[in-house]
């Protein structure tokens, strides 16, 4: 069900899982994790528009995508915290997750890699396995400065692969501002070079994201061609934990007015009481998972 309340609750889950993980970072019990605070509407909205059988391929900032695609929280959190019970037995960590049960075929820490891999996957699904599944690949605006992304867009269009290109445009490359890497106003206009159709939308309004993604995904599926949705968004956290931010506190506070959770709350017109209820209930579920993960063993070294 893609009603706003369900989508909102999913975004709250992501926010709270990340908040909890952040505490681990502060205590030095986790590495410098990459969070999606402020960008949750994109993963939640796009995954809601996909079928369960569709695939996603993602980048380093991927805890949100995992949850949005329906990952079982225990396996995800255990993986992020390096436990043997993680989806990849603690070998992958937050940035290299492969979770085939929810059809999340890898996150790639190295910027840009996800796009060519997703292109190959989409090709094989359509022309080798002969399925109707599509692949949604998530990548940032800064990733479009990477050569591999352009090489892949070229192949994706030539080979007509069913690929939904989800560009999460937060105007930042790690800690570097847009003027250092993006010569155009939008990412969408760069697609003209490959004859790839593209639209630009507000990526912080989860309802708009779902509607746009539903519409585009069906086009990708039926026409078997790559299409890009550029989602303008706001990253409200640092690039990674433990790193300073190029932006001032005031600037981030200003961006926080566009927090996707806030937008959804306003539209839902939830009372403060109802809101607190949702957050508390979600937190309870998450806390229980963290408690069990805490008891889980770390992987042992197998020299083979």
């Amino acid at each position, binding site marked *: 069900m893609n009603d706003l309340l369900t989508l909102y609750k999913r975004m709250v889950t992501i926010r709270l899982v990340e908040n909890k993980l952040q505490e681990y970072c502060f205590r030095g019990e986790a590495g410098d994790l990459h969070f999606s605070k402020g960008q949750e509407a994109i993963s939640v909205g796009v995954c809601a528009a996909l079928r369960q059988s569709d695939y996603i*391929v993602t980048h380093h900032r991927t805890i949100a995508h995992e949850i949005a695609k329906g990952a079982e929280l225990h396996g995800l959190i255990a993986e992020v915290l390096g436990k043997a019970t993680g989806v*990849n037995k603690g*070998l*992958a960590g937050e940035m*290299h997750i*492969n979770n*085939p049960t929810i059809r999340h*075929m*890898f996150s*790639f820490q*190295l910027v840009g*890699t996800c*796009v*060519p*891999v*997703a*292109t*190959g*996957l*989409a*090709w*094989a*699904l359509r022309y*080798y*396995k002969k399925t109707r599944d599509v692949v949604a690949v998530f990548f940032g605006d800064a990733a479009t400065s990477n*050569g*591999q992304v352009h*090489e*892949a867009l*070229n*192949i994706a269009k*030539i*080979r007509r692969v069913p690929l939904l290109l989800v560009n999460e445009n937060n105007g930042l490359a790690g800690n570097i501002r847009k003027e250092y890497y993006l010569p155009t106003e939008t990412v969408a206009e760069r697609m003209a070079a490959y004859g790839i159709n593209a639209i630009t939308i507000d990526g912080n309004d989860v309802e708009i994201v779902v509607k746009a993604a539903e519409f585009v995904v069906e086009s990708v599926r039926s026409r078997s061609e790559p299409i890009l949705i550029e989602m303008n968004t706001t990253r409200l956290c640092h690039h990674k934990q433990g790193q300073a931010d190029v932006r001032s506190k005031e600037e981030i506070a200003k961006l926080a007015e566009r927090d996707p959770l806030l937008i959804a709350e306003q539209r839902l017109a939830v009372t403060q009481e109802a809101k607190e209820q949702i957050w508390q209930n979600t937190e309870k579920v998450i806390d229980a998972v963290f408690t069990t993960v805490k008891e889980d063993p770390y992987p042992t070294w197998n020299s083979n």
Partner: protein
Amino acid sequence: MSKDPWFRNRLIRDAIYHAIYDRMKVDPSIYIMGEGSHMKIHFDSPQIEKEFPDRFITLPISEDANTNFAVGMALAGVKPIVDVITADFLYRTMDSICNTVAKTNFVSDPKTIIIRSEFMTAGPTTGQRPESLFTHIPGLNVVIPSNPLDARGLMDTALQEKAATLFFEDRMIEDATTHSHDMDNKGWWDKIPLGKARIVRIGHKLTIVSYGLTLRMLDLLFEREKLEYELIDLRTIYPVDLELVCKSVSKRGACLIVEPDVTYAGVGAEITAEVSERCFGKLRHPVRRLGAPRTTIPASRALHDYMLPSEKSILEVAEELSK
């Protein structure tokens, strides 16, 4: 026959395609891909072109994305053979090979991915030998056959291994020097596991270890000079058959490694270290290496002979070590 080695040396290539064709017949998941694949298949393997017209994909000159594209295919169950054509282009796809292929295979169930390329010698950026770089990366097998029989058997094996394999083709190995016993039907169907070296010539006093082009050079030299040392063809430089090498060296008390690649930080350096550690008490002489100078390859053919150890230097060192 053309003097141009591009057209001259075909036997190893034919054997590779023979193995690929045979596996394609029984395994519908094998796909060939790379720059101009349809043209390469057209000239190299008309049989594959005729029987499997949908199973080779021509991709643009974008090596890095092409290899990552293959990883995506592998995630959906395809066994891709990525043709990077000349080895120098491997530098352009080091990222997808070392960061994507090797690492995805570590994080979850390993997939079969073959990356092919060939060695030529034509100039600064056409003739480099990057093979030893890949032996340093966990998760990659590196194969360099020196004859058609090994080429067929090793490709056959690589296509059935759930692993990533870099499969090199040494195009400077001349067809005219190929023994008939290295291409006839006897042994054609033998399984050759990765990581098993072959004793090419049985001998005493000294073990000479090599692979690829220099192995072929040595074989000819042995024949002409009637040398009676032991000659071992590594066939795969990762994994390396150290058991066989050390067993041979322990009996003979001396070891020479002759490699077609730069010796500095190369395959020979690794084997020297291992042999020195494992056979220390049995060695009469320090382990020696001969290989390519650490220099950029000049374009003029007049200079290409200097890019490999000379027969004279091999004979001299071998003579010294056999004492």
